[in-house]
């Protein structure tokens, strides 16, 4: 074996790409291009706008200097960070104990508690704000509980944001608690550690990545949220609303761009930290971990159940208040029940058409988004070669999570409303709303698809190639059917979020494409709070029905395919 060959005299073998390889690369390139056009270019347009004056002349940092010398503007940074941190602490604490109850106790009706905790996901963030106004506002029936404090302002914002972010935090923490290793508890119990000691030395450390991740997700959601502070913020300025005010109120697009850039920074930072933490959590999961099985304990279970019931009661109260207010003639003076607030056609905001548009938009988003996201994920995960291209694609797919909806929407004005842009024709159409929404929610959908694809045997593609069968046959006949649960999950996720989103669409809807969520905003703005509540509840019912349908379809599918699904 003493053969000496000089490496530089040998030619490296360059793999020849097959027709399938080229087709898959073409698909990846197409979807990558989509992300560049729908995300990177608009963001660039917005960034350059922040260095221009009203007439489009380059003025360097003037806008920024202007921003940081106007207290009314830069004070919002502190306000935004303040409410985000307070909400973060409260939500994570509440969600942790709720998750603890769901995973570590033997309380009854866990299924019910799990579903009820997810309800806030189904409503636009404007709605809890409206609910709180009816409960604690000037004529609120629980106003006495505030002891003279104002609900309009940080207090209201924080309560509504906790409602809005609770399910997101809960999902993450529940996953973290569910994967922790039952063997550690056994060991601790054998060592006669007390319940408290186990809690502090096993439970909390085990869930630490989940807690950190949840904290950053909540932080990002709150700092980028627009609905809650818009409705209940009063004079308390925050960044997301500032963008809206600059753009819609004062038509000062450059300043809107500056605020957007300012808002991007904490969002990107939180996103980055969260990604690092998620990676660690995956590494922590050992293959041989045994799930923890809680044992009944009457007092502890009762305590946990009371706690969970209180949380559910608060969620239900806020929504029920909205529904009740939407049905009564004139809160609080005439409590006769009637449907007059459902005459949306008489109000600003687009009427019932807005509602139907929303459903149309959500269906398009679910259909187009699921196909684009899943296909893209497949090409990037199962394709061969072009490693650099795939890394770039991954990066593009992760980016939307770091971009607040308001920022994306504003970027779309700058980019698509430019008459020189060849894509200008989609401005003002349903298409741009779908593009914006698909892009805004791309990352979570992409991650869901990737997780499902990674669970498929890596060698399916190898076998298919050795049998000289085209990749699309594999994709359509094996990959998609096997991944159907994930595909449905992506579709319902996109649908629900398309129904509720305001921030990603508020700048780019047109008179022909008004949306229900925006109608809630506009009716509330115009003082028609009861119709706004009514429309918000319509969104809730639509999403609830969609969720139930999804559940039935998923169940039916599971039954039909259980012959081949291993458990």
């Amino acid at each position, binding site marked *: 074996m003493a053969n000496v060959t000089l490496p530089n005299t040998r030619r490296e073998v360059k*793999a020849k790409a097959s027709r*399938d390889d080229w087709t898959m690369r073409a698909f990846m390139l197409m979807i990558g291009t989509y992300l560049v056009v729908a995300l990177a270019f608009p963001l660039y347009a917005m960034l350059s706008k922040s260095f221009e004056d009203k007439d489009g002349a380059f003025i360097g940092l003037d806008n920024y200097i202007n921003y940081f010398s106007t207290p009314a503007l830069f004070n919002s940074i502190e306000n935004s960070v303040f409410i985000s941190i307070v909400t973060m602490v409260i939500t994570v604490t509440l969600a942790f104990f709720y998750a603890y109850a769901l995973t570590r106790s033997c309380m009854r009706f866990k299924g019910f508690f799990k579903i009820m905790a997810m309800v806030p996901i189904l409503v636009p963030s404007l709605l809890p704000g409206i609910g709180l106004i009816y409960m604690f506002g000037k004529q609120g029936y629980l106003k006495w509980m505030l002891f003279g404090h104002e609900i309009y302002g940080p207090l209201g914002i924080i309560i509504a944001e906790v409602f809005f972010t609770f399910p997101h935090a809960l999902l993450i923490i529940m996953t973290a608690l569910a994967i922790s290793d039952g063997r550690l508890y056994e060991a601790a119990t054998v060592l006669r550690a007390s319940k408290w000691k186990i809690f502090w030395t096993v439970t909390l450390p085990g869930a630490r990545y989940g807690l950190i991740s949840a904290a950053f997700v909540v932080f990002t959601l709150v700092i980028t949220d627009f609905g809650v502070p818009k409705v209940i913020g009063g004079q308390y300025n925050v960044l997301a609303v500032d963008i809206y005010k600059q753009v819609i109120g004062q038509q000062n697009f450059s300043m809107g761009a500056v605020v957007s850039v300012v808002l991007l920074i904490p969002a990107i930072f939180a996103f980055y930290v969260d990604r690092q933490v998620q990676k660690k959590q995956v590494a922590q999961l050992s293959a041989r971990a045994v799930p923890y099985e809680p044992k009944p304990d009457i007092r502890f279970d009762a305590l946990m159940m009371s706690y969970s019931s209180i949380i559910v009661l608060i969620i239900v109260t806020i929504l029920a208040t909205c529904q009740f207010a939407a049905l009564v003639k004139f809160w609080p003076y005439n409590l006769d029940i009637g449907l007059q607030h459902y005459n949306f056609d008489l109000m600003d905001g687009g009427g019932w058409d807005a509602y139907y548009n929303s459903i149309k938009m959500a269906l398009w988003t679910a259909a187009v988004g699921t196909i684009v996201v899943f296909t893209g994920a497949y090409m990037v995960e199962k394709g061969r070669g072009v490693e650099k291209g795939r890394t770039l694609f991954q990066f593009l797919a992760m980016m939307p999570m770091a971009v607040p909806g308001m920022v994306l929407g504003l970027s779309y004005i700058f980019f698509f409303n430019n008459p020189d842009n060849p894509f200008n024709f989609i401005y003002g159409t349903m298409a741009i709303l779908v593009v914006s929404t698909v892009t805004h929610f791309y990352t979570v959908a992409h991650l869901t698809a990737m997780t499902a694809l990674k669970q498929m045997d890596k060698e399916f593609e190898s076998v*298919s190639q050795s049998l000289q069968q085209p990749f699309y*046959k594999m994709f359509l006949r094996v990959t998609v059917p096997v991944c159907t649960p994930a595909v449905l999950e992506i579709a319902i996720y996109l649908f629900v979020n398309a129904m509720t989103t305001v921030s990603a669409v508020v700048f780019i809807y047109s008179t022909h494409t008004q949306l229900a969520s925006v109608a809630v905003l506009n009716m509330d703005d115009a003082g028609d709070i009861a119709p706004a509540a009514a429309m918000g509840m319509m969104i809730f019912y639509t999403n609830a029905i969609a969720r139930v349908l999804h559940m039935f379809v998923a169940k039916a599918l599971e039954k039909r395919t259980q*012959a081949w699904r291993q458990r």
Partner: protein
Amino acid sequence: MSANTVGSDTGRKPYLTTTDLTKNFGSFTALSDITLEIYEGEFVCFLGPSGCGKTTLLRAIAGLDIQTFGKVTQAGKDVSNLPPSERDFGIVFQSYALFPNLTIRRNIAYGLENRGHSKAEINKRVDELLALVGLASQADKYPAQLSGGQQQRIALARAIATNPGLLLLDEPLSALDAKVRAHLRHEIKELQRTLGVTTVMVTHDQEEALTMADRIVVMNNGVIEQVGTPIEIYRDPATAFVADFIGTMNFIPGEFNGGTKLKMGEVELQCEVQGTGPKGNILVAFRPENMLVQEDATELPNSFEAEIKYMEFMGSFFRVDLMSKSASADAHIKGDFSINMVRRTGVKEGDTIRVSIPKDRLTIYPGASNNG
């Protein structure tokens, strides 16, 4: 470098060759300069410890992970840079990679479609294959409803459905329990003989390689240590690594300075060593089963005294642990004693006996302080 060809095969044209095949993962070299010839209809096993590069070599041959340098030819054609779909092989993975949502019939038919065959033809071929692997009654079940061994056979049927010129198997039996494995070993070999398809199987199980292969390629750390028939590999291991990896081997430090005698400690032994072997400090190697025990007064040639430290009953023989002050101060020597011999002589733990190693069963390898 000499091509790893065996004498009896000269004159035949190789079906599959790799020439100076090298595979790098970043700065790590997983395979270096692998040159190999495989003949038509041969059953070749790649054998070696975990991480030695067996799978990497197989995947390079398949075009699934193309080598960094070097050439691969199949049926006289240079396929070095071709994607798998433009090569001619069937493959079975350790995981079987059966499509879970397709029935057994459709799994096997998968590769037969889009080739201009009619439905009836495809069905006929699938039935044929199902009969061949003895699972005709399972056609409409799903993979998850079959046992591991049955799934393995379906994967095999799918791989040979299109009559590929080359069959590649990556540890096809390692996910099965011992009994099924032994049975399938035989079945796969039988099938391969019937079909006459050139086959390469990766395994880290020496018993599998010894029983199934026409030739074995022993690999270690990304290089080929030896190529040969199972008997050649077992009888004449080319390197100490092969000797140690295949079967059990005693290695005792010794000294050899040419001629027909070597020294093992104070013991002098006759040997038959070719002139090209190592000299100076060496390792004397012999297998436990080649050790003879002196049963009466007549002294055996090449014998020395040893004390029985421990006897382990292995079923059909005893594995005996011996110490010999004269041969080595601290080396334990393993010997295999037949049940009959033990009964005959009544040897037991603590006895001191005379053992002998026939001179044609002694091999020498370079010693620790001797860079060969």
